[in-house]
């Protein structure tokens, strides 16, 4: 009787990159649907445009590098990057911004550093930072959530604004709330109001807020949270980073809120505004750019959470996940160096 002899690993599972990426993309869907429900068709158009650009860039670079084009397109990683950029930028941003962002993410951030698995920075967030730093006005022009908006853009309106064709439509009419004031995102509104001397309680009475969180944004975040929990259940991601991010943000914002409730956003607002849930489950968990050991990942996540709180409250931009994720990416090798798991048979340290 012959025994089959094979070298380790003896236990394998068929979880390929493309499967993982596919699951992540599927779990993003509820959030994208709700974002479309609250902010119109713009998000969907941006996502589709980003996918087209990212895949073409990926194919072009793979051709230049003389690698297998089909294999790299079918691993879904470029598509995931594109979707993340698409949902992150304002729904009615002009078309050339998303084109520039997606091309930058794939060509410069991903492939110039060696392609999938070698990039130092999260491509989607690096592209977001590129756009935010270059075009701050367009990148902070969010339209009002449909439930409290005076006008909501139709598909045609969205297409005309994004591609700047046909009759000129003023984007600002879609930023008006039912009370006739121009709306910004909840975090942006709070930041502006605090700088004008209002207390956070006074600011929270505006139409964009609904009780303790922002209109629409709460549900979008909830949808991403649900998608993230499914991802955890499917074991496409591990719990360490997400928990670290949420815990870091919660603890930091709780301390701030307890010390000075009038000038700080509540922890609930921090957790359910802006990109919190999207970033905690879908962006920070990118296995390439994060720390690798379980303990390191908790530290990595907590670093992002604390950085987000600091930049949101002290920085010049309303939301901070892109910057926090990039800074944490820079720290990942450092964290890995100091947080090494104990090897079997060796003493700790």
């Amino acid at each position, binding site marked *: 009787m012959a025994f089959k002899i094979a070298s380790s690993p003896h236990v394998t599972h068929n979880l390929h990159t493309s499967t993982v990426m596919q699951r992540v993309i599927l779990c993003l869907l509820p959030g994208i649907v709700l974002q479309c429900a609250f902010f119109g068709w713009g998000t969907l158009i941006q996502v589709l445009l980003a996918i087209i650009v990212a895949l073409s860039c990926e194919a072009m670079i793979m051709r230049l590098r003389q690698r297998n084009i089909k294999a790299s397109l079918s691993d879904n990683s470029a598509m995931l990057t594109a979707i993340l950029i698409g949902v992150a930028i304002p729904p009615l941003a002009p078309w050339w911004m998303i084109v520039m962002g997606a091309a930058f993410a794939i060509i410069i951030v991903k492939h110039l550093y060696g392609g999938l698995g070698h990039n130092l920075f999260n491509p989607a967030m690096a592209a977001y930072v590129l756009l935010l730093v*270059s*075009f701050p006005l367009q990148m902070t022009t969010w339209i009002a959530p449909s439930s409290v908006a005076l006008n909501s853009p139709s598909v045609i309106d969205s297409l005309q604004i994004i591609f700047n064709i046909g009759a000129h439509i003023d984007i600002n009419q879609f930023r008006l709330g039912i009370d006739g004031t121009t709306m910004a995102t909840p975090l942006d509104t709070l930041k502006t109001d605090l700088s004008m001397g209002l207390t956070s309680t006074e600011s929270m009475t505006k139409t964009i807020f609904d009780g303790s969180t922002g209109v629409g944004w709460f549900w979008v975040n909830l949808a991403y949270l649900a998608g993230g929990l499914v991802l955890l259940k499917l074991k496409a991601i591990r719990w360490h980073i997400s928990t670290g991010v949420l815990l870091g943000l919660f603890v930091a914002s709780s301390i701030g809120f307890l010390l000075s409730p009038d000038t700080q956003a509540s922890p609930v607002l921090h957790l359910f505004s802006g990109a919190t849930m999207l970033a905690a489950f879908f962006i920070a968990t990118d296995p390439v750019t994060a720390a690798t050991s379980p303990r390191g990942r908790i530290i990595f996540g907590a670093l992002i959470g604390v950085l987000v709180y600091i930049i949101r409250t002290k920085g010049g931009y309303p939301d901070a996940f892109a910057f926090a994720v990039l800074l944490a990416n820079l720290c990942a090798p450092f964290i890995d160096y100091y947080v090494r798991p104990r090897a079997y048979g060796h003493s700790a340290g």
Partner: protein
Amino acid sequence: MTNYREIAWQGLWKNNPGLVQLLGLCPLLAVTATITNALGLGIATMLVLIGSNILVSLVRDYVPKEIRIPVFVMIIAALVTTVQLLINAYAYGLYVSLGIFLPLIVTNCIIIGRAEAFASRNNAFSAAFDGLMMGLGFTLVLTVLGATREILSQGTLFEGADLLLGPWATSLTIHLWQVDTPFLLAMLPPGAFIIMGLLIALKNVIDKKLKERQPEVATEPSVTRARITKVS
């Protein structure tokens, strides 16, 4: 012994201070937001470089080896001050827009590097020629970088050329296209780093193509030159 063609080739391409030696990165990246600033700083650096190379070469036999660096630095500092005062007098606008990077030419590693590696070992004529070529190589990189950044960020060329050349030069400004929203990244330091990286990559690609085209082994030059790898 002195091969002028070799010196020119070294300064302009093979050992280019900007692209290969990566010296003087601080001004290279900081002031190249427009082609005018880039040209201004490049020319100022070139003037200092030529002057310091000549002076260092002239005094090289009288300076004890132990104190040569302080002496070189004094010579360079005196020249930089001269150039700074001249620019202050004749191109005040440029003086303001270059700011601290003009006096900082003193610390530019290219200048002390050339003084140490070339001028202190060669006669004044070849030292002057080396200064000219290294300065030209540096200015070329600065100009290309400045032009790229200016086109990307504002869609213009020679914006503010009157600061460098006088009022008549306002007509030099070329508007390539109208930009509603300036591409701020190209104006900011990260953009400079990215474009600089792409320029170096482009040079490497060209070198590779040249090498492929000429497979025969080139004879090594008889004078091997010390290459400075210190990063400023």
